């Protein structure tokens, strides 16, 4: 191992390597930074060697990812050192530490310029490298002309000139307005005759940049490029050292073909012929070989040749050859080639004539959609998306939908967006479009943005033939036991609007429609309630003659929501209630929604925007613009009055390609929080385990006291992983320690009691009593805290803080700062459960009585079983489901011994307090089913309790 030659540096590096953990490393690095900083402060005493050593250390630390915010000056100052070793370090470290925007760089411009125009070749090289890597505008302004001189100078050696070419490329690329390249066409043409392949390679890169900006000026370079390519492809006069695994500089070949792609066409017939000969040779002559590097290099050339052939609009025969090659590639085992095959086939779609040939490979491409490599899957998706048209849309979209169920999260978002766009663009008939979108919502509701379902509603509204079809479909989906909230929204909307069209069919009477929609009501969040209310109002309006029973039901709902804290809901409820009493005039007010003005699809528009945003001008894209006919993006006509298209409803995050990190999450992390705030969970195992364990656990509380102490589950509510505040010690009121305020009664017992009932006292001490009253509906709950001041003096500094666990969303209304004497204050608390968990919410409550500050932390009885909802199930339905569960962790068994005998009705009552229903008609077995636990994760919980060893007389 060659050593760095700087002992201090090596010692530091080994020290860092020997650090056991990140903390130690940070300490060691901080120590070194301190050291370097002090040394730099007394710069006078530093030898050049030391200075070098310290800036290397800085760079090393910087590379490790630490902030190095000093010493830049020292690095830059080394550039002006007279001797090579220091100068070299100065240049290299500066180029690594700084970027073109750093002010310090300005200080170096003069020195750099002197080095460039000076006679010392090695200094020239260092300076050109720095400018080539980080040179900004000021460098371009003061140095471009000098660099140009070096590039064409006959007295400079190749090692300087190749650097000058790339340095110029950088300056031009960054500031094309500053670098004057007038008249450079001839110079470039001359440079292409260069014998030294290093200089030629660099010059070719420069040419690519120049022609990509303005090909007109460089026509004279075109034949030279073709000549160069011929020379390389035929391996004529190429020095051995410039062949790479037997292939004449593959990089130069690729660059040359890249340059050629920026010329719109090759007009001269002779040049064109020679070029096609070379390309033909590359296409036909590239074989798969064993050596991986040789293979890569030859295929790098081949793929570039393919791109050039596409660009040149070759004869159909050659194009078919290309597609045939690509068709072969997408089926090979080598993943790189498969990836590139798919990618280039997507590019090939730009060529009109070959689309039909590409379609023949559809089956193979669909296979790649299931490739183990996400990179390849993405390319396959891009290709399918690109090749989709009216003829194959049905197949492709259905394939995407099918894949959606098994696709990884990293891709679902993109998949659903693409499926939605394709369905809209190429739908053979509108009912198919409705089918697709509803399936999409059903399978990947979390990834379907509002835009998508708004669009369905627009189509349905604007197309009368579609309305009854859509209503029937919506009705079908509502029959499913667990559907996504978006599905509830769209179905409720459509049924409210068009359900009456089907009123004569069985199952579509207003009452039935209302019932089936209202069944979903407990599972939805506040954003859906307004849609449901509108839907109810519409159903009511369509019920002619009125049905008093239905009317009353709906009015009750309106009544209830008239006091809802959500303004939107409250207003709708109040208005619909008032309107629905107006009789006939209701018909006018709630008449069918008018047709929407024709709009550009917000979806497609956003997808377009995203494409434009990331668009990079390139040969292929330039070409795509030249060929309007192959444009893939189609849009609706905009309304003539220039009405703004659909109001934007939040940022459409769909278009973004989701980062791959999601993909790499370990399975334990499946409870992902999606950027839009929706929590989804795929893996039903951990929660169900939790639930069953929890239920069995709480059961034992009712057993004899001894059993409670022994049972490991008795601690269920101690909530492992809950905020530390929830553990027993933290529940002791702070005041108690000072001995001034003692709680009355046992806090723990009060909590457990409240877990089983919905009202009672949560906490009491000589000054205050906190009572609680709760109402639970599906995943939502409303608690009211009653804060009662027992004293004849006010309680001040009252503060209530909710510390919710991650699975609960809690909102406490304002708590007044003082509670007047003998008064009781009510504070509503809204709770929403996002996913099953045994963690417990804590109320951090404090108040001041006289000089004493009292603070208590109380667990809130918003526990798991409160969110359960029992449904009745017959034994015939129960047992197949129960048996289909395979065992732990889906199914757990727990034997509880020493339970005191319990009569069956009491037992059933006990279960009822846990919100579990006992199925009727079963003797020794009590299956209990609870259901619909929350809006997103609808899971069934099946519990079977077998009574053994219980005296028969009790049964």
């Amino acid at each position, binding site marked *: 191992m060659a050593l760095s030659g700087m002992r201090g540096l090596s010692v530091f590096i080994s020290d860092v390597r020997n650090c056991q953990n990140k903390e130690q490393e940070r300490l060691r690095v901080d120590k070194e930074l301190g050291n370097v900083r002090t040394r730099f402060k007394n710069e006078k005493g530093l030898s050049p060697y030391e200075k070098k050593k310290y800036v290397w250390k800085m760079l090393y630390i910087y590379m490790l*990812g630490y902030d190095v915010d000093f010493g830049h000056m020292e690095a830059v100052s080394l550039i002006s050192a007279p001797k090579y070793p220091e100068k*070299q370090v100065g240049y290299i470290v500066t180029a690594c530490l700084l970027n073109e*925007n750093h002010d310090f760089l300005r200080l170096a411009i003069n020195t750099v310029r002197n080095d460039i125009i000076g006679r010392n070749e*090695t200094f020239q090289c260092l300076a050109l490298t720095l400018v080539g890597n980080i040179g900004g505008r000021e460098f371009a302004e003061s140095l471009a002309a000098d660099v140009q001189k070096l590039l064409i100078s006959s007295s400079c050696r190749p090692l300087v000139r190749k650097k000058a070419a790339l340095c110029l*490329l950088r300056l031009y690329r960054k500031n094309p307005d500053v670098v004057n390249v007038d008249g450079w066409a001839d110079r470039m043409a001359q440079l292409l005759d260069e014998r030294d392949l290093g200089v030629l390679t660099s010059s070719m890169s420069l040419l690519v940049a120049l022609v990509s900006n303005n090909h007109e000026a460089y026509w004279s370079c075109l034949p030279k490029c073709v000549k160069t390519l011929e020379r390389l492809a035929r391996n004529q006069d190429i*020095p051995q050292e410039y062949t790479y695994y037997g292939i004449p500089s593959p990089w130069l070949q690729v660059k040359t073909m890249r340059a050629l792609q920026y010329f719109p066409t090759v007009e001269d017939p002779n040049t064109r012929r020679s070029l096609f000969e070379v390309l033909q040779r590359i296409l036909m002559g590239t074989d798969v070989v064993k050596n991986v590097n040789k293979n890569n290099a030859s295929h*790098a050339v081949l793929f570039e040749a393919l791109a050039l052939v596409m660009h040149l609009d070759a004869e159909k025969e050659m194009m078919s050859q290309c597609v045939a090659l690509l068709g072969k590639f997408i089926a090979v085992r080598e993943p790189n080639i498969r*990836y590139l095959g798919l990618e280039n086939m997507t590019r090939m779609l730009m060529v009109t004539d070959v689309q039909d040939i590409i379609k023949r490979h559809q089956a193979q491409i669909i296979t790649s959609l299931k490739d183990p490599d996400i990179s390849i899957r993405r390319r396959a998706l891009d290709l399918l998306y690109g090749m989709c048209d009216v003829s194959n849309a049905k197949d492709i979209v259905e394939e995407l939908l099918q894949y959606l169920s098994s696709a990884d999260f990293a891709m679902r978002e993109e998949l659903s967006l693409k499926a939605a766009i394709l369905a809209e663009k190429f739908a053979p008939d509108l009912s198919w479009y409705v089918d697709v979108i509803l399936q999409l919502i059903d399978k990947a509701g979390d990834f379907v943005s509002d835009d998508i379902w708004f669009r369905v509603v627009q189509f349905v509204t604007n197309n009368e033939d579609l309305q009854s079809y859509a209503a029937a479909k919506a009705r079908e989906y509502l029959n499913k036991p667990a559907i996504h909230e978006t599905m509830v929204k769209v179905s409720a909307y459509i049924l409210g609007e068009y359900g009456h069209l089907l009123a004569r069919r069985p199952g579509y009477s207003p009452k039935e429609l209302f019932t089936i929609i209202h069944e979903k009501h407990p599972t939805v969040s506040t954003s859906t309630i307004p849609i449901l209310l509108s839907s109810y109002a519409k159903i009511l309006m369509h019920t002619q003659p009125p049905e008093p029973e239905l009317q009353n039901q709906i009015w009750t709902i309106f009544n209830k929501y008239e006091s809802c804290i959500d303004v939107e809901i409250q207003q709708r409820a109040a208005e619909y209630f008032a309107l629905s009493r107006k009789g006939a005039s209701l018909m006018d007010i709630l008449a069918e929604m008018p047709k929407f003005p024709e709009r550009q699809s917000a979806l497609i528009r956003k997808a377009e925007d995203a494409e434009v945003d990331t668009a*990079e001008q390139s040969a292929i894209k330039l070409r795509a613009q030249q060929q309007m006919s192959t444009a893939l993006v189609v849009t609706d006509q905009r309304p003539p009055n220039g009405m703004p298209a659909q109001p934007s409803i939040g940022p459409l995050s769909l278009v973004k390609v989701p980062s791959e990190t999601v993909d*790499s999450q370990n399975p334990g992390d499946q409870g992902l929080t999606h950027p839009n705030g929706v929590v989804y969970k795929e893996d039903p195992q951990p929660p169900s385990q939790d639930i069953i364990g929890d239920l069995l656990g709480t059961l034992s509380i009712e057993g004899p006291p001894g059993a409670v102490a022994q049972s490991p589950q008795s601690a269920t509510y101690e909530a492992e992983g809950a905020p530390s505040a929830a553990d027993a010690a933290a529940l002791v009121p702070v005041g108690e320690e000072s001995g001034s305020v003692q709680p009355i009664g046992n806090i723990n017992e009060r909590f457990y009691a409240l877990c089983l009932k919905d009202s009672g006292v949560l906490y009491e001490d000589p000054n205050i009593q906190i009572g609680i009253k709760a109402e639970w509906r599906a995943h939502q709950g409303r608690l009211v805290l009653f804060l009662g001041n027992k004293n004849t003096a006010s309680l001040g500094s009252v503060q209530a803080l909710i510390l919710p666990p991650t699975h609960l969303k809690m909102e406490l209304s304002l708590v007044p700062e003082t509670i007047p004497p003998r008064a009781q204050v009510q504070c509503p608390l809204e709770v929403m459960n996002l996913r099953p968990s045994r963690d417990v919410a804590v109320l951090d409550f404090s108040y001041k009585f006289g000089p004493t500050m009292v603070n208590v932390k109380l667990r809130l009885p918003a526990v798991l079983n409160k969110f359960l909802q029992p449904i009745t199930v017959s034994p015939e339905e129960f047992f197949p489901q129960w048996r289909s569960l395979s065992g732990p962790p889906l199914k757990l068994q727990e034997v509880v011994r020493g339970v005191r005998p319990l009569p069956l009705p009491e037992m059933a009552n006990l279960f009822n307090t846990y919100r579990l229903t006992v199925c009727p008609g079963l003797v020794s077995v009590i299956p209990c089913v609870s259901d619909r636990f929350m809006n997103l994760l609808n899971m069934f919980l099946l519990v079977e309790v077998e009574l053994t060893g219980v005296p028969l007389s009790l049964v």
Partner: protein
Amino acid sequence: MHYTVCKELNSVILSVSSQINFVCLISRQGKVRLTKWYSTYSQKERSKAIRELSGVILSRGPKLCNFVDWKGHKVVYKRYASLYFCICIDEEDNELEALEVIHHFVEILDRYFGSVCELDLIFNFHKAYYILDELLIAGELQESSKRTIAKLISAQDNLVEVAKEEASSLSNIIAQATK
């Protein structure tokens, strides 16, 4: 559904040809062994890029392809023993070309150090930077001849040696004179 074909011609931002945006070497443990930035990134963007990228690349299994999509760019990577060599290129660039730039770099390192290992690059990271500067400038390949690069690097080493000897002979002279 009826659509008119429309294509926006004027809104595409002109970005001149493509290039390597950055090169980085990351160990299997996620330690950075070398970074070189050709496009302009701030310090913050640099550390973020490296952090995110190592997450993506280190978690990829074997036998997958050498390319990953990354923020509108592509990263071409290859693992050599314990080290991942990564090159970030633009979407339209030639991936295999970049892949062989990596191998070319590795071969040059190998020739210089004599069967190079991660440890060589840890203790001689500055040499790796010298070599990289002879290989790439402005994110473009500068030289494809291994022999030429080897010659240039050894010429640089000589210059440093000569300067060292001069310095020590100078200090000898001073030492002699002040005796």
